[in-house]
């Protein structure tokens, strides 16, 4: 999957998620794997709804965590690549 600024990432529908003190636990029933996301990754995960671009998610992250847009963009790209590697994103 090519991940660039214009991508509108979307999380797979059939994942089971639970929020624990702001951090998400994500259970992939298909792969029988569990993933734990830290606060910022959980925030990004929740924005990956197929309508928001990487740039737009980065802007939200920068606002929410009071960090620079450059840093936010870097974090979103890393997180979304990680979601893709873990098989949590819908493929095109």
């Amino acid at each position: 999957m090519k991940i660039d600024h214009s991508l509108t990432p979307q999380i797979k529908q059939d994942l089971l998620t639970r929020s624990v003190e702001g951090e998400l636990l994500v259970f992939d029933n298909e792969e029988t794997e569990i993933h734990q996301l830290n606060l910022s990754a959980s925030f990004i995960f929740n924005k990956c709804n197929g309508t928001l671009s990487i740039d737009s998610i980065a802007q939200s992250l920068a606002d929410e965590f009071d960090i620079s847009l450059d840093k936010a963009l870097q974090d979103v790209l890393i997180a979304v690549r990680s979601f893709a590697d873990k098989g949590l994103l819908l493929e095109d």
Partner: protein
Amino acid sequence: MINNQHQIIFSIFKCIVVVNCALPDLRAVLFKIFGAMQITDQSKPADITFHIKCSTSNSNQIIISREGGNDLITNDIGEFIFLFEKDMTIELQKLRPDLLFIHSAALEYKGKALLIVAPSGTGKSTTSWAMINSGFKYLSDELAPIDINSMSIHPYHHALCLKSEPPVFKLPENTLFTSQTIHVPCDSLPLAESIKIKAVFYLEYIDNIIEPEIIPISTAESAANLYANSLNILAHGENDSGLGVAITVASQLDAYKLKSNDLEKTCSEVKLLMDSIN
């Protein structure tokens, strides 16, 4: 016809395990490994029954037969212990689905239990051995069955099983050495009974650190680790694949990443931390 003198009976997690074995050497091995859980008075019918015998075609082979199961054929004592215990503990998990079984060591210190969670072969038993020689009591080095309602842990008093000679503290004379493993019988260990768990340590052995490090981790990280190390989590949640139970248990325990190198220093650090937990 079963000779009662050839029978050993164990009570494990309130389940009765009966082993029929006419071979005195193997009975002696079973006694060394599981003797702390042996009972002499069988008050209820057997939940699991094993028959152990030599192969008629090859006298070096040992056959483990469980009523309702397939025969297991083993070629030496180490393999016999491994396969017998694996089969028995899987059956015990089926008999006690109410308990959450974690692949973990468990110890007690000053009335509080702690879990040491780590992948196989990465130091649970060696760390347990060091801790037992540093003031901790032994619940298990391998299997931690948790009563989720009371958050207490049931002891699994099998002989502590090491993969190699530990770097600290001399092994007792009654230690059993096999081709694969080293077993320290429970009569050489200070034993703890069922007790409430207070903390969980996720152990990582690291060569290139100066001192052991104990780092608090989040409930979510602990829940994910507990989930991954549970043996029967799916029995604990029809609707959420057991996620809720992992979170419930994790939220009641102080959780730490334990980066260990020096065993004696590690024990001291864990004792200090356990003293600070109510």
